[in-house]
């Protein structure tokens, strides 16, 4: 008990931080709000922005007292003031505060100026918020303005364009089109996803309605993220949802409708005769007999019946222009004591793939109330319900060959969806390697896979002002999850269009139902004490706290077979082979954290933080980790020699150092578990068998990431031009990885161990220029991030994984293979070259003999590509003219490659299709200058499909991610109808892409070997924003 107490006392002793000071954003400070103290004179007026727009909810305070009011919806206010000279203070978020001395009682017309650049901005940081000017770490943030009206179906897509954040949307599957987020490269060999906290609590981004997001902040360096300790190594994403503002009740509606189509699909041969002749040619090159007889090809050529002699384009049949619509409604408002915001959202997205769709229903409510001068409470509720449906043969490309998407990508021109009588068709031309025709259209239309998830985050907080300026806050949150997933596998009969023979589709799961229920409860409770004190020019803030988290997940699956028809879709409707499985798991985290910050006169800034974290994922004795950070800043522009300088309006130097952790390994990785299901049949009876299947390392503990960061913020010409530079070195030590063990150790899966170190070095540059020329306002912004990933220490070990290698001195998961140096032009050249293979012929790929032993073998392999982008960049362009606004957002990656081996990526692989270039641009004696080696099938001739640089493709791209044109209807038209704001807009997402990568979308999972992807959508939408 003694050590326990000590820990608690430690936590309580180092107190607490960060409230921000600053007039620009005070909301809760009008108590008592009533103005009956002043009976003497009445004064009124209006407050407007520089553009003339009336500002509602502006705080009007009587200086030196606590009396005041807020402006109404039309910007007007009225106050009782004492006789004589009084000073009024006007303040409003995002605007410079203004003091007015009132002597008479004439109406006041106040014009507030926008805060210069970002200086007034407040950003969300760990367990609080901070003025951007006093930040010492590296954070990137965006607000709802940047997201407004983009047809974002998943909140993760919103992060695109933040410097140092690589957001890669790899698929467009409705309800599951989340993007991968990588913050400053890949620092781990495990899960590299950042920690996502919504209103301070861990919550998946997929379940946040993008239109409910007020701001997103990404904590990139250790100084900002260390307060989140052992889960922060991949960076932290903080999402704040919208809350109400004091002032008039307000109703917002925004909605759009639009259409989506596949952004980029591979080109393939859809002419049946061309396909068959090409295959015969490939086989002839391998010295094998033709697969399609001349008689068959001739018959096909003259055949007229389109059901028997089709030239089918399966992409054309299976993909469509799909509708999308979204509607969001928000009620918000409040008075000086209580504010609220309640919203409802609805998304209805049809998939690009036929018979796939998702619907989302979302609610979000935020209530904050000041119960007394010392006590404030609040509640926040987020609820998201997803219902997505698609084929039972799911379209998820991770199913590879098995999934519907895989079948579409291997569809052949000789196959046809329907037979003459409208029934589903079988194939009649037999294709080796493709013996069973699993008709994709039939699989898309019969049976279904339905995935319903419901996730709710409810959190309550209580804030109490203790003596000595200490503020106590506690948050209790429950993140609840419930899901039901159901597969209804159909039985499908196929009709042979030539012979009329009907047979059931082969090689698919037996008709049956499989249903899974999932549930999860994640309880978070944290307590913080914060303190803030201004002593002359010294400003001191502190925060101390602790949190406990408990994750409890479970699932239950049942399946049944023996159904008498596809239309029966309940578990109870079947009669044979019922099966069940299920499990539940528990994990816990306990943490203590603290932060101290100090500044002198707003000029010299310093901050230190720590987190002490314990996790149940590790064995006792290896559980607790300490994650400290230090940072400092110098606002040079506040020095006297620069103050008032019109050219250099902001100059700040920042430096930080800190450590973070990563605990992301499976539960119980520290014990040898005995697995069951190793069964064997004796005398016709199955006996259950059990064996250890994995060795463990009981000493396994978390990874530690150390980030050093230096940054410079520059504002020029009154912050019209802003520049931000950051240089960082992110070193991850004790990397966790499941190591592979030589098979001779019982062929056991290897243990998770702490194996080595990786460094990510790089820099980020952000520049923005904002100006106005008459009525035309414009802004240009750009950012660029450069990153060099390198494995620095693996204890000499080398980890191979298919065609990638991880070893010291090279990037993680670099592509590894032979180096292709051209195409053999003659037998003579083959004889004069190092021995490639006994079967090598002219037209084959020539490999480099890197070890100079005159034989090409595995020892000649070298690094041939890099799957982590070196350069990521984006730029935004914006222009406003009167009510018109145009914005465009581009994103790109450079110096990155991908390696493709799957169906269609290599010619005639597994009886799949072929891209046209293989038939026109492959080597023949008549075409010796061809780009491609001689045509062979991928399976039949291994020599040319060995892992080599020939197959590495450049995956760089530049994409116009979003372009939007909007028009704000003039106020004078709207006033009559009682409308505050009405904006109409048109928007295009993923509209133009520049890339050399043509085999599908270049925005892809770069280590994936196949090209099977649910295509990303190119979307055009139109909609309105309405405020009453």
């Amino acid at each position, binding site marked *: 008990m003694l050590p*326990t*107490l000590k820990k608690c006392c430690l936590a*309580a002793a180092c107190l607490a931080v960060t409230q921000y000071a600053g007039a620009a954003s005070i909301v809760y400070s009008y108590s008592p709000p009533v103005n009956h103290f002043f009976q003497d004179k009445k004064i009124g007026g209006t407050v407007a922005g520089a553009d003339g727009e009336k500002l509602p909810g502006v705080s009007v305070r009587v200086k030196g007292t606590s009396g005041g009011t807020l402006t109404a919806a039309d910007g007007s206010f009225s106050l009782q003031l004492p006789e004589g000279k009084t000073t009024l203070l006007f303040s409003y978020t995002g605007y410079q505060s203004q003091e007015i001395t009132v002597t008479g009682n004439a109406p006041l017309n106040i014009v507030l100026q926008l805060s210069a650049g970002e200086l007034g901005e407040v950003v969300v940081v760990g367990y609080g918020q901070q003025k951007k000017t006093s930040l010492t770490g590296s954070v990137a943030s965006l607000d709802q303005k940047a997201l407004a009206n983009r047809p974002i179906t998943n909140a993760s897509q919103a992060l695109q364009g933040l410097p140092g954040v690589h957001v890669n949307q790899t698929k467009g599957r409705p309800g599951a089109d989340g993007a991968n987020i990588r913050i400053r490269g890949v620092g781990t060999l495990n899960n590299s996803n950042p920690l996502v906290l919504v209103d301070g609590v861990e919550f998946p981004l997929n379940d946040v309605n993008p239109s409910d997001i007020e701001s997103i902040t990404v904590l990139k360096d250790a100084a900002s993220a260390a307060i989140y300790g052992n889960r922060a190594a991949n960076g932290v994403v903080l999402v704040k949802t919208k809350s109400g503002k004091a002032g008039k009740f307000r109703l917002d509606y925004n909605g759009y409708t639009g259409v989506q189509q596949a952004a980029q699909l591979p080109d393939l041969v859809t002419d049946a005769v061309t396909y068959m002749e090409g295959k015969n040619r490939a086989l002839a090159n391998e010295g094998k007999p033709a697969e399609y007889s001349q008689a068959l090809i001739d018959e096909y050529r003259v055949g007229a019946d389109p059901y028997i002699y089709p030239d089918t384009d399966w992409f054309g049949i299976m993909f469509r222009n799909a509708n999308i619509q979204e509607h969001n409604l928000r009620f918000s408002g409040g008075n000086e004591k209580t504010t609220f915001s309640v919203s409802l959202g609805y998304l209805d997205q049809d998939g690009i793939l036929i018979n796939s769709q998702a619907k989302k229903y979302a609610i979000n409510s935020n209530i904050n109330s000041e119960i007394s001068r010392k006590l404030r409470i609040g509640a926040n509720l987020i609820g998201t319900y997803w219902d997505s449906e698609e084929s039972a043969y799911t379209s998820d490309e991770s199913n590879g060959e098995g999934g519907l998407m895989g079948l579409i990508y291997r569809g052949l021109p000789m196959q046809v969806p329907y037979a003459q009588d409208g029934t589903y068709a079988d194939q009649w031309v037999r294709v080796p*390697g493709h013996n069973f025709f699993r008709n994709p259209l039939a699989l898309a239309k019969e049976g279904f896979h339905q995935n319903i998830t419901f996730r709710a985050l409810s959190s309550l907080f209580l804030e109490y002002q203790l003596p000595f300026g200490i503020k106590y806050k506690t948050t209790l949150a429950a993140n609840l999850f419930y899901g039901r997933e159901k597969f209804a596998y159909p039985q499908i009969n196929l009709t042979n269009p030539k012979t009329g023979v009907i047979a059931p589709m082969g090689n698919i799961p037996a008709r049956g139902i499989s249903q899974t229920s999932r549930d999860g409860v994640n309880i978070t409770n944290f307590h913080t004490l914060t303190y803030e004190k201004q002593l002359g020019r010294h400003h001191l803030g502190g925060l101390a706290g602790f949190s406990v988290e408990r994750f409890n997940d479970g699932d239950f699956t049942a399946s049944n077979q023996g159904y008498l028809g596809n239309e029966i879709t309940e578990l109870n409707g079947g009669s044979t082979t019922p099966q069940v499985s299920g499990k539940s798991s528990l994990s816990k985290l306990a943490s203590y954290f603290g932060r101290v910050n100090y500044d002198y006169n707003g000029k010299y800034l310093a901050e230190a933080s720590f987190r002490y974290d314990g996790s149940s994922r590790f064995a006792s004795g290896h559980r607790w980790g300490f994650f400290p950070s230090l940072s400092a800043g110098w606002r040079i522009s506040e020095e006297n020699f620069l103050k008032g300088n019109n050219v250099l309006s902001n100059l700040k130097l920042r430096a930080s150092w800190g450590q973070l952790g990563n605990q992301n390994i499976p539960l119980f990785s520290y014990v040898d578990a005995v697995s069951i299901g190793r069964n064997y049949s004796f005398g016709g*009876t199955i006996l259950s068998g*059990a064996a250890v299947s994995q060795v463990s390392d009981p000493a396994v503990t978390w990874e530690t990431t150390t980030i050093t960061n230096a940054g410079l913020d520059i504002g020029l010409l009154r912050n019209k031009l802003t520049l931000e530079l950051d240089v960082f070195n992110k070193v991850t030590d004790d990397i966790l990885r499941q190591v592979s063990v030589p098979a001779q150790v019982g062929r056991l899966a290897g243990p998770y161990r702490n194996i080595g170190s990786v460094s990510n070095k790089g820099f980020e540059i952000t520049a923005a220029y904002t100006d106005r020329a008459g009525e035309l306002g414009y802004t240009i912004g750009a950012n660029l991030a450069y990153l060099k990933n390198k494995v620095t220490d693996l204890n000499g070990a080398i980890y191979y994984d298919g065609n990638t290698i991880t070893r010291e001195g090279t990037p993680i998961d670099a592509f590894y293979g032979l180096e292709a140096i051209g195409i053999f032009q003659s037998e003579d050249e083959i004889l004069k070259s190092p021995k490639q293979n006994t079967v090598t012929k002219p037209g084959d790929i020539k490999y480099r003999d890197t070890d100079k032993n005159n034989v090409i073998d595995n020892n000649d392999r070298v690094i041939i590509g890099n799957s982590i982008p070196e350069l990521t960049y984006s730029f935004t362009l914006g222009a406003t003219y009167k009510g018109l606004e145009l914005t465009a957002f581009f994103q790109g990656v450079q110096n990155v490659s991908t390696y493709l081996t799957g169906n269609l990526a290599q010619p005639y692989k597994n009886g799949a299709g072929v891209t046209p270039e293989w038939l026109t641009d492959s080597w023949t004696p008549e075409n010796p200058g061809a780009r491609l080696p001689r045509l062979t099938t991928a*399976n039949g001739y291994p020599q040319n499909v060995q892992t080599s640089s020939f197959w590495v493709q450049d995956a760089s791209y530049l994409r116009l991610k979003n372009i939007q044109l909007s028009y704000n209807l003039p106020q004078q038209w709207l006033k009559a109808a009682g409308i505050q704001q009405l904006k109409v807009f048109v928007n295009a997402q993923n509209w133009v892409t520049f890339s050399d990568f043509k085999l599908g979308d270049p925005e892809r999972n770069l280590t994936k070997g196949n090209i099977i992807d649910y295509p990303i959508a190119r979307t055009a939408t139109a909609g309105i924003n309405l405020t009453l």
Partner: protein
Amino acid sequence: MKKQLFIYIAAGLLASSCGDKFLDVDPTDRFTNDTYWKTREHAEAALTATYAALLEDGLYGSNTPVMYETASPNAYNYNNSGGFNNLAQGVHDAANTAAVNNTWRNAYLGIGRANTLLARIDGVTMDETLKKRFKAEAKFLRAVFYFPLWNLYNGAPLILQEPDFAKHATLPRNSAASLQTQILQDLSEAAADLPLSYTGTDKGRAPKAPHWPSRPGYCCTAADGRKLLMPPKR
């Protein structure tokens, strides 16, 4: 009100699990190697799992015996499944041909399970006769799993202890002759404790070989012509 609140806060700070104990969680869906090996059921399931290794790819599962035929002129493998065409063409190595790895890997899967049983079963409380038979079955299976390593690879690391990452990961190959010695020793030790045949739901277990030669004789020939000499029946 203020006093009460303080008390609540203090209570909360103390109650909320400041200790390590809060973080103790045990798996409830599986045994660990230390909680296993207590009953006859455990030993029997471990033995069953050793038999189950026979069904793995590269041994007798996934049509392996037929697939090996496709490396010969007797059969053709049109899609190079398992890389057997590479074997036929003579361009195989461990990186490009799955078959080379599968047989090796899964032989050691079975060997590891047999070794674990032999190492742990003495601590199990159960009928001693049955325990002897279980051990004999495990030895028989170990010989079966070492056979392809002798036959196809001409020597491999000879491991007879429970799998241990630190001790076994870097062991070099032993000679084919030492594998042969071990195979024969296991077979003859197994024969001593195995019944001639089984009935009912024990059918399919390893029996004392009924066709064991009564004089020394060759049982099998390896790919390179080596022969496995069987000792006489005991």
